[in-house]
């Protein structure tokens, strides 16, 4: 990828991160850690990879995205707003009574949300159903999903993986946000789903391991996934929970807590500084 393009995506990812901080700060709750870790993945999907139309969010021929790790809705909402599915002003109304942006994605009321998720393990099954649907109809659209690494502890994930491979759903590309932290601590301390790559390979997936914050690697992985025939692809993306906000990085405590006013100011200051670095 050319540097200019990379810079452009980095700027969007920065705006996504700002959206995550602003929305969770305003809500006084929510899940910033795992939203920040997938900012690059979401940015690439919504600005480079997926065939979508923000003006016509229900367009039948669109690619689909299912945020299986639904608690990181702040990240999804921020990228949807950046892409023009709804005004950025909606973000600060996250989790406010009677407002559109629910704590977890709600496909009935939020433009651009293709599936209601939040209960871990369920999103991937829906994504598999969507991919199967496209195969049945002979449609060429693709289906994308992002799962949490801790989410892999849900048995349903493996029911879905087994089925997707058995039905040869090569139009399905999932990504695992491997930030190595879940609510109760490190994966290995809680109930390790490791090794991730070998598990998905054993379940019949084509697996690509990447640095989930590197746009070159993200681009290469999604491009490669499209060339794979007869099996679904899993991108195992090594990421950093809380990435982009120094005091949130690699801390499980930022899984599900919001920044207070002081922390908010510091986070925004750090993200502003990123812009100077990119040269915006």
């Amino acid at each position, binding site marked *: 990828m050319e540097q200019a393009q990379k810079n452009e995506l980095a700027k969007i990812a920065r705006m996504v991160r700002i959206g995550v901080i602003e929305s969770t700060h305003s809500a006084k709750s929510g899940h910033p850690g795992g939203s920040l870790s997938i900012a690059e993945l979401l940015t690439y999907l919504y600005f480079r990879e997926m065939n979508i139309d923000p003006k016509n969010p229900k367009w039948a021929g669109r690619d689909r995205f299912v945020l299986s790790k639904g608690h990181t809705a702040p990240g999804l909402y921020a990228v949807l707003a950046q892409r023009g599915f709804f005004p950025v002003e909606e973000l600060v109304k996250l989790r406010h009574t009677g407002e559109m942006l629910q704590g977890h994605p709600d496909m009935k009321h939020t433009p651009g949300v293709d599936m209601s998720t939040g209960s871990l393990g*369920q999103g991937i*099954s829906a*994504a*598999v159903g969507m991919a*199967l649907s*496209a195969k*049945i109809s002979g449609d060429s659209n693709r289906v994308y999903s992002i799962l949490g690494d801790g989410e892999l502890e849900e048995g349903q994930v493996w029911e879905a993986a087994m089925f997707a491979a058995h*039905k040869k759903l090569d139009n399905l590309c999932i990504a695992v946000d491997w930030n190595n932290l879940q609510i109760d601590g490190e994966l290995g301390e809680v109930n390790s789903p490791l090794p991730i790559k070998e598990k998905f390979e054993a379940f019949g997936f084509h697996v690509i391991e990447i640095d989930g914050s590197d746009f070159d690697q993200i681009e290469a992985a999604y491009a490669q996934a499209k060339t794979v025939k007869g099996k679904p692809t899993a991108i195992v993306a090594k990421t950093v929970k809380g990435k982009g906000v120094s005091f949130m990085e690699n801390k499980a405590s930022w899984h599900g807590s919001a920044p207070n006013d002081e922390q908010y100011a510091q986070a925004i200051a750090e993200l502003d500084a990123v812009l100077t670095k990119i040269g915006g």
Partner: protein
Amino acid sequence: MNEIKKQATRDAYGEALVELGNTRRDLIVLDADLAAATKTGMFKKAHPDRFFDCGIAEQNLIGVAAGLAATGKLVFASSFAMFAAGRAFEQVRNSVGYPHLNVKIGATHAGISVGEDGATHQCCEDIALMRTIPGMTIINPADGVEAKKAVFAAALLDGPVYMRFGRLALPTIFDEAYKFEIGKGVQLTDGTDIAIIATGLMVNEALIAAETLKNEGISARVLNIHTIKPLDRDLVLEAAKQTGAIVTAEEHSVIGGLGGAVSEFLSETLPVPVLKVGVQDTFGMSGPALEVLKHFGLTAEDIVAKSKEAIALRNA
């Protein structure tokens, strides 16, 4: 008298799916390694390109159904009631119910008439579970004719439907001219002393009970409530007004099923005695279906006894 035709509602379900598949090209049927038992195997044979076996994985079954429905397909997903409503309850609630997706759950082997398989497979909680999901329609047909018509009606309704079918062959009550409408109960006999509100295989027992009561000079009204949610409130209220005593009859726990629905409604509108024939707060057991039904008090005789109790309570 001609011999009464018998058919299990699961067989009617299979037949209906095959027919529906002929006209609805968007119909997809899913199962979880029970196609031979749930009778979706009939659809598999007729429309192999639109049948998918999810294997022994009911949580994924419901999730895949949700994904298919989210992209515009009409989906029937089948397993035994125990697994479709029980094991996959939260998938039904969050992946189907919350987004109000067009998924029909064809749950077979409901209730204790499963028989020999015993308590682990005799699901008497499914109606109670499904009733708590906002927007869920629940249909529990009384015979093969009604089951078939219910499938066609459910296919035309945009939204989730839980359909409850049984393993046991049941006497056919209705003929082809029978009119079925989701949410509209059917008054089968007129009566003023007691109203027997029945669903599923207990409808036939209710009709037999009404005959017995009639011979004893008691006029019993029998209602067939095939749609438990939304409940036909008008018909139930009218029966309560005109009889003042009610017996509900269902092959389900007395907690949270038809009896629960009728009681909840009448306690807020017109409190009258509502006595419940159903599975008391207990698990089932192995045995031939008819013997098990008798053991748990799910026969016409039990309805007759409860009817007399209800009348006595009203007159007390």
